[in-house]
């Protein structure tokens, strides 16, 4: 794959290759020329699909719900105005994201599991003939069970099928005998008969097997890509692709909250109240620490300051806010000299926008607070004990706390935050928490609704009395 500046035209060499299966297996980088702008935009489109899948999975959506979700995401993002380009877009975007996600273990893991899930759902959407073509492409190392063998375990196979709610009349007659290690999902769901380490995989379960193979091939490929990246591409593309690649991996795709909807949405006098009702734990913690110590280190000032800006605290109020606290510790003069400038700066210059955009959860979660730092995401950076204490101070009951801790243990920090949100507000938050400012605005919306409906209620009762 070669990347060209945007204006050059490329010859699409895959267009007439009609016999290719509808889901590419991404075995090798395509002999394609890619325009620089497509390099990035295709990747972003695919990333939207992957993030959508990842959210769906971590929210515990059911398989059927996931299937629809994936179909919709794919339709919405992976189209191309020229039908002939759709396959190219699929392949190019995959290979660009490989570069993006090959670079650390954590990134690789995420990419691997989401791409495998994507493959699985797409495979299931295919018709029988298309599935057969894809299967052949995989060149499975397993043979179907012989008749004799099939008869010897038939009773058990029927039992498994019936345990899955199938009618015995529709039970498959073609089974593959596969080491159980290769079909972890089928084992986990007790969807296969196991005997002496062999899993008997029915024809209609083969997708699970393919997904495992797909995954292991991709896993190996990612390691190789990583080697290539560190040994040459990174240096060669220092000025062109590397910055794009690096930006992509930390990209957060929701609204960026850099422009508060209207200044003055919150004012200083009710800030304490709002902190309690609508700040996510990360911000609440910073706020309380600031009140306690009258100081925050740089990381904390950035995280809280930009959040407050996004929430709608205007510059004057922001200055007053920081001044009130800091001057107690460092004195008024030092505050004006050393800190006030930064506050103004973060409200002012539009030029370096990225630096002054409120932090997304992803960015906060990936930050690495050191000694004396208070920033970061409490779900990730607090000890279990401290987190429990913080949750109980927020009024999360013990049942919900256990659910939260469970998510934390599985490293789903944003979900833990979402559950906290739901526990406190007594309402579902279907979109999940992706940004502290989103937490804030969702929370405010709920309170607004509550106020509205209680007003309506008052009005109604009044009307009755009339």
């Amino acid at each position: 794959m070669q990347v060209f500046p945007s204006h050059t035209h490329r010859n699409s060499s895959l267009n007439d290759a009609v016999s290719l299966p509808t889901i590419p297996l991404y075995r090798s980088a395509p002999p394609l020329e890619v325009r620089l702008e497509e390099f990035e935009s295709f990747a972003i489109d695919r990333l939207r699909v992957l993030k959508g899948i990842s959210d769906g999975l971590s929210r515990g959506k059911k398989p059927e719900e996931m299937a629809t979700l994936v179909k919709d995401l794919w339709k919405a993002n992976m189209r191309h105005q020229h039908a002939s380009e759709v396959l190219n877009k699929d392949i190019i975007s995959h290979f660009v994201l490989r570069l993006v996600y090959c670079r650390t273990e954590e990134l690789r893991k995420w990419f691997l599991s989401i791409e495998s899930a994507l493959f699985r759902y797409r495979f299931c959407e295919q018709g029988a003939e298309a599935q057969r073509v894809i299967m052949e492409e995989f060149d499975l190392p397993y043979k179907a069970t012989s008749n004799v063998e099939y008869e010897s375990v038939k009773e058990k196979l029927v039992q498994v099928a019936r345990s899955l709610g199938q009618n015995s009349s529709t039970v498959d007659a073609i089974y593959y005998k596969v080491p159980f290690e290769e079909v972890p999902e089928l084992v986990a769901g007790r969807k296969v008969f196991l005997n002496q380490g062999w899993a008997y995989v029915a024809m209609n379960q083969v997708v699970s097997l393919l997904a495992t193979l797909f995954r292991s091939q991709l896993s190996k490929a990612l390691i190789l890509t990583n080697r290539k990246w560190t040994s040459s591409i990174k240096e060669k593309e220092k000025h062109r692709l590397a910055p794009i690649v690096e930006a992509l991996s930390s990209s957060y795709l929701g609204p960026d909250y850099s422009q508060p909807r209207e200044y003055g949405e919150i004012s200083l006098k009710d800030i304490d109240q709002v902190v309690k009702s609508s700040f996510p734990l990360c911000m609440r913690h910073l706020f309380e620490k600031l009140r306690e110590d009258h100081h925050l280190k740089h990381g904390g000032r950035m995280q809280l300051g930009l959040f407050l800006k996004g929430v709608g605290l205007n510059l004057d109020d922001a200055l007053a806010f920081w001044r009130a606290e800091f001057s107690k510790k460092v004195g008024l003069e030092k505050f004006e000299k050393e800190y006030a400038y930064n506050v103004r700066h973060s409200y002012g210059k539009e030029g370096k926008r990225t630096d002054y955009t409120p932090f997304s959860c992803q960015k906060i979660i990936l930050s690495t607070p050191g000694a004396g730092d208070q920033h970061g995401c409490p779900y990730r950076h607090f000890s279990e004990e401290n987190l429990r204490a913080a949750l109980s101070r927020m009024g999360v009951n013990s049942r919900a706390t256990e659910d939260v801790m469970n998510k934390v243990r599985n490293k789903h920090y944003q979900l833990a935050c979402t559950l906290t949100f739901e526990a406190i507000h007594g309402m579902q938050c279907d979109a999940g928490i992706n940004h502290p400012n989103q937490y804030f605005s969702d929370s405010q919306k709920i309170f607004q609704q509550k106020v509205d409906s209680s007003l309506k209620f008052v009005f109604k009762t009044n009307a009755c009395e009339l």
Partner: protein
Amino acid sequence: MIIDGYQARETTLPNEFNPNYLKLYYGKLFPHSDLFKWMCYGNDGKHPGCDPSYLSRREFSYTLDNDIYVRFQSFQNAAELESSIKDKCPFKIDIGPVYSVDPSKRHAYAQSGDNVFTPVERELIFDIDISDYDDVRYCCSGADVCLNCWPLMTIAIRVIDTALRDDFGFKHILWVFSGRRGVHCWVCDGKARKLTNEQRSSIADYFRVYKGNENSYKKVSLTGHVLHPFLAGAYSDVLKEFFETKLLTSQNLLSSEERFEKILEMIPDQSATAELRGKWQENRRSSIAKDDINVVRWEQLKQLVHSGKYKAQRLHRCVEEIVFSFTYPRLDMEVSKHMNHLLKAPFCVHPKTGRVCVPIDPNHCEEFDPTIVPTLSQLLEELNREGFTADVDGEWNKTSLGSAIGLFRSLFLQPLLEACKKEIETSYNAKLKHSKDLHSW
């Protein structure tokens, strides 16, 4: 009979845990060389296929006096392992995974790129704890265990052990008493040690029947027209009989209103429960001859559910669901799912009970009695009675630890080491052949 003060002190050691006794235990009784042999998996041999770095990449952790916890200990050879244990005298020894590099030197590798220090092998482990059964046993709670509730552990061993062998094809399985309130299981086959986390999770989930949160064991839900062969086998071969002939009566599951209500709750048909409740409340006083009240009521329940009189959906399943809820093994899932979970080594002494973590023979697990497992002080007493001899190796032979170590060797270690030897040879020959093939090109 106290003859003189010294003698008296020697023969009546207080029945508790004591660091000084522990020192003696590690010095005279603990089977260091067996632990070493096991942890080497044949790599301490002379065969050119052996990996001499194998043992040194294994993590050991110690819990010392005052709850000091030292992780990432590693050892080059048998002598180092033994002298470290004797020297540090740990209250508890935990065994961790085999890493890609020597864990005690992990910092040296930390700089050279990501992911160099990572677990590469680990036994598949299971941890079953009787305190997780508190909602279904009335005799004890928490860490306590008696001969009425211990059989729950016994059948857990039978169910899991059978499936590990028959379904998954594992052969080298070690069951160990955890010293107080449960059992540990180590699956040591080569392919078990190499499982990925995902594969480990899949096995743990294969064993799981409790719905919802992993920490709440309340609800068993069995779906489908019939049970999966594994569950069906566990039910008909182990659980059903145990429930009906032992647990019902030993725990008096249906004797009082409070208890039978818990079981009635699991029947998904209001009118069926009402009928049973009526019958049982009436019956409270009339003594039903010789038959045990629990058994009688259980028969009534089964009869009613299967009579076809009530038609609620899933009603036919509730008998099985009740039996599963009360008897099916409750595994600590998290322990089994990840390679880097630590687990206490066999032959440690439990600091609260003083009992030694001895192996359990899964073929005769119903004979195992946790209340007569040798304690530290008992062992030292036995040793004193026999008198110390110069011949240090095999000192344990004179104590009741002898049979435990014998069992460890004959049942587990010897067959394991034989298999390891073969594995090392086969993979070495395969490699040799492979490189020959390459040369002939």
